[in-house]
């Protein structure tokens, strides 16, 4: 057995660390999707009529749409009627504070390493935790509300700030944008809502944790971030799911709106269950994330570290409508075993002097397939638009694949578009060199991979960067190359 094979063997034997589930009473909808289910969800959430109508319209459109088959991923047909579209942890009454939150639930978060109370006290990160479908508790609400910042669950926003939700919901990702966005629009159960008023710089990182708990449940959360003129917010999203044999469906939508001079930083560390080493189970992750730089000089920056999910289909994008607006996409995507990822970004340049920067680092191991798919579109009106794209792939072993699909459309001659791409392999030489200096194989891989991903990792907020580094090491534990 060559060293490569040996390492791959060890690599693939690594089990998913967050694989456990907690039993608490769930309030579920029966499996399947139809108008009644959507009415059930909407009623559960005591939604206004306009929102129910919006959902039903999305559903109708969804039934007429076809699941996209263009991504470079293969998976068996999803039985959409076999999925439960709503599952709320049952609670007798709504919690007023953390003390009233189900202790089992809080324990779940502690095991995830995000004890809300600890976070509240130590880190100053405000957390909105979404487990299965319902937002459990939001910390720091008071501190934020003094600044006029609204940070709450989506359901709460629907009740408390219907005019804002109505104005922005679907304004960046229309209900019928694509198959999965339409599905989400029909059945979304909760998510986070964040509103930063004019001129306010959000003093802390806002954070959401998503977790799928109940079996056969899909999670369809919806996040809406609105940054008014001259405001700033940095938003973090973390995801985990317990280990299950069946594939679970996740189809989220994130919309970001940035007005003039506003800046939004959105960071994700995605660690959904990737399936076991034989490719059984795992999350199907079909996510639509899009931001619009609506006002001049606005900026949206996506940073993602993707380590989980059996199948990932995700292209966080920026519509650069305002003049001088900027979009950024920094991504590390790791795939192992039988994982498949088709991820990248779209940068749509509409305004003048718009700039975009894409840095994508793909790491493939095991028998996984890792694709970067990116579109840079410079529209006619976009005078002096600039784009720089860099796509690097790192391969571990010889059974995995790395693919790059860049699409570049330029309709204005003044544009400057650069694209660089590299593919490399973790070498036995590199590993041996580390070992000779006393560094064991696993640490060597972690070191090399983190070095490879450094440019992206450095864009993450500090507390997230540490977690992401550990995750990379964990995902690739035992591997080498």
């Amino acid at each position, binding site marked *: 057995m060559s*060293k490569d094979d040996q390492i791959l063997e060890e690599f693939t034997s690594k089990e998913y660390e967050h694989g456990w589930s907690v039993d608490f009473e769930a309030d579920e909808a029966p499996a399947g999707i139809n108008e009644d289910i959507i009415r059930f969800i909407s009623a559960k959430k005591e939604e206004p009529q306009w929102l129910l109508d919006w959902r039903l319209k999305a559903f109708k459109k969804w039934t007429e749409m076809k699941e996209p088959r263009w991504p470079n991923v293969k998976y068996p047909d999803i039985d959409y009627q076999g999925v439960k579209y709503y599952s709320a942890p049952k609670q007798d009454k709504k919690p007023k504070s953390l003390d009233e939150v189900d202790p089992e639930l809080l324990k779940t978060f502690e095991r995830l390493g995000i004890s809300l109370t600890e976070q509240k006290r130590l880190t100053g990160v405000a957390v909105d935790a979404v487990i299965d479908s319902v937002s459990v508790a939001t910390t720091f609400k008071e501190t934020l509300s003094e600044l006029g910042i609204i940070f709450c669950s989506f359901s709460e926003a629907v009740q408390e700030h219907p005019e804002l939700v109505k104005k922005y919901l679907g304004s960046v990702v229309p209900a019928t944008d694509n198959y999965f966005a339409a599905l989400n629009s029909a059945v979304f159960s909760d998510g986070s809502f964040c509103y930063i008023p004019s001129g306010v710089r959000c003093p802390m990182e806002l954070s959401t944790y998503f977790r799928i708990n109940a079996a056969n449940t899909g999670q369809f959360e919806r996040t809406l971030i609105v940054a008014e003129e001259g405001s700033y917010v940095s938003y973090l999203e973390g995801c985990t799911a317990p280990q299950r044999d069946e594939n679970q469906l996740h189809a989220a939508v994130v919309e970001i709106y940035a007005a003039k001079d506003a800046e939004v930083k959105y960071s994700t560390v995605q660690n959904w269950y990737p399936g076991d080493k034989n490719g059984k189970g795992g999350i199907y992750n079909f996510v639509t994330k899009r931001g619009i730089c609506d006002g001049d000089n606005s900026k949206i920056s996506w940073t993602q570290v993707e380590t989980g999910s059996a199948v990932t289909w995700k292209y966080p994008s920026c519509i650069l409508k305002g003049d001088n607006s900027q979009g950024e996409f920094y991504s590390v995507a790791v795939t192992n075993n039988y994982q498949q990822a088709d991820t990248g970004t779209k940068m749509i340049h509409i305004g003048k002097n718009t700039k975009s920067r894409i840095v994508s680092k793909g790491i493939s191991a095991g028998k996984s397939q890792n694709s970067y798919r990116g579109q840079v579109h410079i529209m006619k009106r976009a005078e002096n638009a600039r784009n720089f794209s860099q796509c690097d792939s790192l391969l571990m072993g010889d059974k995995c694949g790395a693919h790059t699909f860049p699409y570049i459309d330029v309709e204005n001659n003044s544009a400057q578009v650069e694209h660089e791409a590299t593919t490399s392999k973790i*070498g*036995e*030489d*590199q590993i*041996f*060199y*580390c*070992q*000779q*200096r*006393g*560094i*064991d*194989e696993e*640490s060597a891989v972690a*070191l*090399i991979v*983190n*070095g*490879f*991903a*450094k*440019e992206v990792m450095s864009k993450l907020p500090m507390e997230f960067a540490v977690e992401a580094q550990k995750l990379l090491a964990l995902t690739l534990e035992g591997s080498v190359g």
Partner: protein
Amino acid sequence: MLKIDNLHASVEGKEILKGINLEVKAGEVHAIMGPNGSGKSTLASVLAGREEYEIEEGSVTYQGKDLLELAPEERAHAGVFLAFQYPVEIPGVSTTNFLKTAVNQTREARGLKSLDAVSFLKVMKEKMKLVDIDQALLSRALNEGFSGGEKKRNEIFQMAMLEPTLSILDETDSGLDIDALKIVADGVNKLKSPDNATIVVTHYQRLLDYIVPDYVHVLYQGRIVKSGDKSLAHELEDKGYDWIKEEVAAL
């Protein structure tokens, strides 16, 4: 300290080492010379634990332990250091970060406490003086875009940081101009002590003017065919390797 007994090793079915015998004691400097393809670098790699080499026969005892049983990092923890002929690039990882990981894993393996950032930097500052290396170089990604001289100096700096008992320098002189050679040799000499030993693998006698060996061995066709003191190196410099080849052929 090190005893190599009848060592046979092969790579991809081809036997490269055909019965090496060598004993190295603490405080000694041994030079291994020989024409290209004689197995010098193979010997260095086998001692460091490169897995592509199959040990066919023989034994290597290091400080009373069976060296061949140990994983490469365990050998490092036990004090075996290899200065690479071609140091490897690791993009995005600074020499400082790399060495901090290396030093602390070695310390942990030896039951010592890890060095915190402050203590580590202090040690690093001291060792930097020893091999005259620039701080800026250590902040850059390991060996990436380094000149030949910088790479070799970095190897010796790592050696200084890890304080090995047995250092193996594999063709450390290759690609160095005379000034760089002097600096590197000077570093090695400063690190010499009665408790450690050095094996210098080289094709040319040049390096041995600066790192003076106690013993010189000539490796040819996978065997040590001749041993002597430093005068043997000079003889090789004057006469080349042909006379050795002829001697072996005559046997």
